[in-house]
């Protein structure tokens, strides 16, 4: 059943890729090089998946603080690791696109700056985990920090780029807070968003199981 779901996700993502290049028309509004607009279908869902990861981590952290179950602590840490991976990928793909569209890899655009701040914030989370040896104390402190992310992350992801002038194209980042594209582009974008989110939870599940096994093995050795 799980294998079937994985292959369905593969098929879904293949359709997204084909749709991005042969179904969705190029976006002209706000793009100097319209052909580059196709990056929206991959770069934006990566950023969304990163956001999902950080919010999921806050929810698991809250659950940890309530129930003190180490599984929730592990799930939160893994969600942040994978959220960071997607965040870094979104930043790298964004920088490549910025080179083509704006002429420079990095422009200190509010959106670029805010995602860099998010990456540093969660990088500090991982550093915090590394710095505390006692497992229960580490889990408690990390959970409190990840909960703080519940305020920081939505602000940096959604508010900052919209209250300041952004070089990002209007169809994606605008003051209405909605994606403003034609129907075909929206369909591919949201389909890709769903695919990336599913990929995120799949990777999250695998990594949690992997770490559980590693912990069990380490406990057996002791």
């Amino acid at each position: 059943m799980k294998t079937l779901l994985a292959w369905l996700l593969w098929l879904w993502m293949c359709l997204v890729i084909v749709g991005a290049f042969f179904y969705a028309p190029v976006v002209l509004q706000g793009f100097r090089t319209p052909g580059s607009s196709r990056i929206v279908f991959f770069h934006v869902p990566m950023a969304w998946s990163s956001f999902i990861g950080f919010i999921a981590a806050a929810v698991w952290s809250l659950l940890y603080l309530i129930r003190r179950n180490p599984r929730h602590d592990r799930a939160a840490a893994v969600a942040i690791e994978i959220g960071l991976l997607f965040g870094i990928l979104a930043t790298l793909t964004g920088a490549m696109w910025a080179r083509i569209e704006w002429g420079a890899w990095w422009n200190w655009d509010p959106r670029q700056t805010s995602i860099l701040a998010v990456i540093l914030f969660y990088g500090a989370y991982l550093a915090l985990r590394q710095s505390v040896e006692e497992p229960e104390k580490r889990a408690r402190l990390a959970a409190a920090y990840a909960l703080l992310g519940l305020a920081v992350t939505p602000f940096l992801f959604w508010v900052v780029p919209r209250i300041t002038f952004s070089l990002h194209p209007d169809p994606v980042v605008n003051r209405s807070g909605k994606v403003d594209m034609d129907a075909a582009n929206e369909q591919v974008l949201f389909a890709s968003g769903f695919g990336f989110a599913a990929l995120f939870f799949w990777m999250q599940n695998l990594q949690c199981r992997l770490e559980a096994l590693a912990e069990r093995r380490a406990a057996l050795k002791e």
Partner: protein
Amino acid sequence: METTANANLWIVAVNVVIWTGLFLYLLRLGKRLREMEKEK
């Protein structure tokens, strides 16, 4: 126009190959994990 279509076809093909590789890797990892979970 035809050149753009050809270029797009190549990009789609490379993307599909990368995604297939990633999926096969994750499926293999999932299978290996199930085996190890059974072993314990």
